[in-house]
């Protein structure tokens, strides 16, 4: 009986000590601000565009982020304008976008905290390997487009929809001071990238595409990459946390944790590796955020 009493006392003391330690521990993590052990809301809702989602990058990064942070990432893919609307209506905690002026408007309007650019990719000009318009050594995409426009017997196939790729294409035509619409050599599919690339392949025409779509379809197309790393083909991806003053329910802590992880070393390395195994080359280039 006496022994039992001592045991009880010992257990009680140990429990008290453990409690104090636990309290201190959680105190320190809160001060630390990483929030790893005291996650109020474990779900981070990320809104992004279909183009980003289709690249598969996010589903590839998701388990690493979840393991490192303890959060659960919920990814929703929208059209570019709908992704921004999701942020404006508080249906997302964090946005991953690639349209600088729209992002700036979003932040200026008070919906987003700030733009955090974290990686780049390049659009490609693809076309017949024989390159009849001779664009391979062009200093810029605008110069290449001008060559395609003035060459005879070369077609250009365009998406002609509301996509980012098409917007980028139109910007390049504007820079080249050419209005391609209605030209006999200009084909507009009003359809997705794969359909557009197939038509370009069939016609052996030039086409502006994102790298993922091209590499995923390259085997059957008969088209070669003719121009890549030019400044006017660059596409910068940005993370924006939804401003908690606009939407108090938004999971700002989660969004911060996601942005912090995405701009960190682990994510940079994972992004640099992505695509290398399947296509022999990276699809995205992480920025140096340190």
């Amino acid at each position: 009986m006496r022994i039992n009493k001592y045991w009880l006392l010992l257990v009680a003391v140990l429990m008290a000590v453990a409690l104090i330690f636990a309290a201190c521990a959680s105190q320190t993590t809160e001060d630390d601000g990483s929030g790893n052990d005291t996650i109020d809301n474990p779900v981070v809702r990320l809104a992004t565009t279909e183009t980003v989602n289709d690249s598969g990058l996010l589903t590839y990064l998701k388990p690493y982020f979840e393991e490192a942070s303890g959060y659960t990432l919920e990814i929703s893919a929208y059209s570019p304008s709908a992704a921004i609307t999701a942020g404006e209506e508080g249906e997302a905690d964090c946005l991953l976008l690639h349209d600088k002026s729209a992002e700036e408007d979003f932040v200026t309007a008070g919906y987003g905290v700030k733009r955090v650019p974290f990686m780049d990719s390049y659009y490609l000009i693809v076309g017949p390997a024989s390159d009849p318009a001779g664009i391979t050594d062009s200093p810029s995409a605008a110069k290449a487009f001008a060559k395609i426009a003035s060459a005879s017997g070369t077609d250009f196939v365009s998406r002609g929809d509301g996509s980012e790729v098409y917007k980028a294409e139109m910007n390049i035509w504007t820079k080249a001071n050419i209005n391609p619409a209605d030209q006999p050599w200009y084909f507009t599919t009003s359809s997705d990238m794969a359909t557009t690339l197939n038509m370009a392949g069939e016609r052996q025409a030039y086409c502006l595409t994102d790298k993922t779509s091209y590499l995923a379809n390259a085997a059957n197309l008969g088209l070669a990459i003719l121009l890549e790393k030019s400044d006017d083909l660059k596409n910068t991806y940005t993370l924006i946390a939804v401003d908690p003053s606009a939407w108090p329910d938004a999971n700002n802590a989660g969004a911060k944790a996601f942005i912090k992880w995405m701009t960190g070393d682990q994510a940079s390395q994972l992004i640099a590796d992505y695509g290398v195994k399947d296509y022999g080359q990276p699809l995205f280039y992480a920025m140096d955020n340190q």
Partner: protein
Amino acid sequence: MEYFVDAIKMLLGNNSELRDIVAVTLQMSFFSTTISMLIGMPLGVLIGSRHFVGKRYLVRVIHTLMGLPPVVAGLIVFLLLSRSGPFGEFQLLFSVPAMVIAQVVLITPIIMGLTASITSVRANSLLETSRGIGIPRRKEIGLLLYEARIQLIAVMMTGFGRAISEVGAVQIVGGNVQFKTRVMTTAIMLETNKGNFELAVALGIVLLLISLIINSFAQRLQEERND
């Protein structure tokens, strides 16, 4: 109702793309119906008026082809015309001629089958008479076609109706390229998907109006011949 009013305004306005779509549609339907008639009507008369071994099976095949799904016709023509296909060197894919070819594949059996069943009804008595009065055999096809001309106008309209309203085949081989191979049906599909219902309704109205005008014309023709 709002869409309807907007659509009418769009039609009366100066929409060059709409006019372009209508022009391509009419061009395509005209050529595919004409070519299908040139092939299908003489062959249909031959099949309908003659007796030969295996006729039953041939008619069965033609009747099956009359129900050929447009997407299947489109797919076959796509594969034939694609760059790696047997006719790839002509670079016809995603052009109006490619759409006409696909529609000819689709419409010829319909015209052939209908013509055959129309001529078979009167062929025996007619041929007996014509042989009796000494009309040469080579003129028989022309005679049968002439005698069936009123019903053949209806056959033509069936073919034309199929050509102008068809969407699957022309989408596949035409690719719905703006200003080039976009026709009314593929444009309606596209605008509906884009949520652009005004233009979709406007195109639907034009499509129906064109059908109405051409059918009225054909009816007049039938009535005149009947008199």
